[in-house]
């Protein structure tokens, strides 16, 4: 049983690190600000989430697990808020999304 938890925790930690690198790579490679924002959210949700799940499995039922849960809750609520404020601020300052050729921006 302990070995099974170790293996699941190991897989979660590896996957979380991999998703963090994928998000950071997307932040460099994407062509446009709004697509970059999309790539960065991979790091905020799956990367941080899987890492926290892996660490909780390592900690067991202790105060450390509760603190990690608070960390997960903080990421869960704060990261979408920051992303929303970022998109709103960028649109308010007149940054237009990159569109495919011949595509019209939708009227608001």
């Amino acid at each position, binding site marked *: 049983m302990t070995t099974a938890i170790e293996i699941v925790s190991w897989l979660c930690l590896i996957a979380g690190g991999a998703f963090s690198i994928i998000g950071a790579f997307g932040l460099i490679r994407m062509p446009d600000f709004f697509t970059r924002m999309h790539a960065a959210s991979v790091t905020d949700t799956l990367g941080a989430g899987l*890492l926290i799940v892996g660490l909780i499995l390592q900690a067991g039922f202790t105060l450390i697990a509760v603190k990690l849960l608070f960390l997960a809750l903080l990421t869960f609520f704060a990261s979408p808020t*920051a992303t929303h404020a970022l998109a709103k601020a960028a649109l308010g300052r007149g940054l237009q999304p990159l569109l495919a050729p011949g595509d019209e921006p939708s009227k608001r």
Partner: protein
Amino acid sequence: MMFAVAAIALLVSLALVLVRAILGPTVFDRVQAANTVGTLAMMLLAVIGFLTGRPEFLDIAITYGLLNVVGTIAVLKFFERGNLGDSGEERQP
């Protein structure tokens, strides 16, 4: 061992995000990169706490996450409005 792997992955992503923060054509790219650096640093603090066997680092990670949110929102409000809520003009009585 597995904590070291996770820490190295987080450090690699931090380096990649820093490249975007330096290159970023607009200020919003830099703010996005700073926000991502905050999330990654939070996770790095948690992982390092487990790596060194001192999970008290989690308190620092929680504090860092809270500060990161407030900082991002404040900087964005400044760049959206040009001020932090006060118009900067004298109010007429």
